[in-house]
């Protein structure tokens, strides 16, 4: 356990030093604040609370940005250290290889979590200051939590890529490919499929499964169908009535999406000949 802490701590220090933490925190905070105030302009004083609107816009921001940041943090983690020769020395120390993978993962996750909490928290804080009171903070906190979980998924996927390929360029390319696939292509393909199918083959159950197969969709369903106000606003009310996916199932799917690639990465590094 101690080794995990030592390795994670080094990763965080590295993140501070090479400005990853500052850059991602500022980026998320800037975008979150922009979305919070610009995003609520068109709604005026409609019934929905400003926070609900913010949750919808920040969820969309998370789906695009958090996986990208996570993959960029992670794709180099193993193959890059291998390339630079730092992994060789680290593994000659009394640490197990899985400890290296998990320790680094925890460090990267901490960086991402810090950026998300501070960045999005800034938006909530600003609303609090502007309106004096805010309803639905619990939903907002859940949104931040699930954003971090989505980050964990993509850090884990990035690690898996990083541990199985031998070339940094290839790892980077695959990471971008994964991002494109899960964030852009998958949904378009799914939408196309539903339009063509018109409910003949794809039942609600199949649709649920398809949504769980993409962590970004699992996150979307989790947040945008969460509470009544949010789902109405997100235009996801119809979907949430159809989908038989409880929050527990969605969180479970995201956890599985984290554990499996991470386990794969640990396994791949364990078998690697240095």
């Amino acid at each position, binding site marked *: 356990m101690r080794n995990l802490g030592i390795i994670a701590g080094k990763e965080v*220090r590295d993140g501070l030093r090479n400005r990853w933490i500052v850059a991602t925190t500022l980026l998320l905070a800037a975008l979150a604040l922009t979305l919070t105030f610009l995003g609520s302009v068109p709604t005026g004083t409609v019934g929905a609370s400003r926070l609900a609107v913010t949750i919808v816009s920040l969820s969309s921001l998370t789906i695009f940005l958090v996986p990208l940041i996570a993959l960029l943090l992670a794709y180099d983690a193993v193959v890059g250290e291998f390339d630079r020769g730092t992994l060789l020395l680290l593994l000659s120390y009394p640490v197990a290889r899985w400890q290296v993978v998990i320790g680094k993962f925890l460090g990267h996750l901490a960086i991402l979590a810090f950026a998300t909490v501070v960045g999005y928290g800034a938006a909530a804080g600003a609303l609090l200051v502007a309106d004096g009171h805010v309803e639905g903070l619990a939903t907002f906190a859940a949104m931040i939590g699930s954003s971090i979980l989505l980050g964990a998924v993509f850090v884990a996927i990035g690690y898996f890529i990083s541990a199985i390929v031998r070339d940094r360029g290839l790892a980077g390319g695959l990471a971008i490919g994964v991002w494109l696939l899960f964030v852009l292509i998958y949904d378009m393909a799914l939408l196309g499929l539903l339009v063509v199918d018109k409910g003949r083959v794809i039942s609600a159950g199949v649709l649920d499964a398809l949504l769980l197969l993409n962590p970004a969709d699992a996150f979307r369903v989790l947040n945008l169908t969460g509470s009544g106000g949010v789902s109405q606003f997100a235009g996801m009310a119809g979907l949430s009535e159809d989908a038989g996916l409880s929050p527990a199932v969605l969180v479970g799917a995201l956890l599985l999406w984290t554990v499996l690639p991470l386990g794969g990465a640990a396994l791949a590094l364990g078998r690697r000949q*240095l």
Partner: protein
Amino acid sequence: MTAVVTLDKVTKRYGKQAAVNDVTLELGGGQCIALVGHNGAGKTTLIKMMLGLTHATSGRIRVLGEDPLSHGGQQARLAIGYLPESVAFPASLTGREMLRFYARLKRRPVSECDPLLARVGLVEAAHKRIGAYSKGMRQRLGLAQALLGSPRLLFLDEPTTGLDPFLRHSFYSIIAELRERGVTAVLSSHALSELETRVDKIVVLHQGKALVTGTLDSLRTMARLPTIFRLRLRNGLAGKVPAIFEGLAASSVAADGAIELSCAADRKMEVLRRAQAIEGLDDIEIMSPSLDQLYASFLQDKQGIA
């Protein structure tokens, strides 16, 4: 003397290519052993296997009594120091931070770090980013991390490449000091002339095979390379080979008039005795075959057989 490292018929193949081929070796405590050979002779692979970084295709390895790939082997690495060939560190951390990180992993107090940095001459650079270090400084930091926690066993892969002569010297004095404390050290090198007086045992590796193993003296005897004498005689006598060396040593006259004698190692003392008796001897130079020459001769033999 118990064995610190035992290798029994160890082979490592990458595909069909054998990087290490049937190597059997035993290292006693407190010994300093040199692995000598070309690039690609299997030195680094051998060290990596002893560290459990890569596994042997066949054969048995025990380091400090443990299989390096087992959990026990992982614990045994608490007492092992390793300096890889062309050592690398994350560029964004400072030398001190880096060393402290490694100290924690080895369960050593971080207070051990500053004295170590002083020992390798990195005190002034300790707060600088490693990205700004020169190759020599990185190598010194590499040595510092290898020395963390007074290891019982050291693996140093090409330790002196990139060091200037002064640092090289201080490096070897650190090694000598460790040897006195009973630390076992495995060096790999192709800077053979440096190793001569500094190691107890030499293993010549060629294409993954341990060609010969022994002390420098026993290697000399095995190679049967001649010892060369250069005699400088007073004017008038120059260029004339005294008859007393007939049948004892082959002789020739060098361009500058010095007489060169070449004889087998076991006749060295006899030649020396007779040379001293010569009237008008100004100077005498004795050149034992260097490790470089020995190495070349073993490889030639090898190629002759193959």
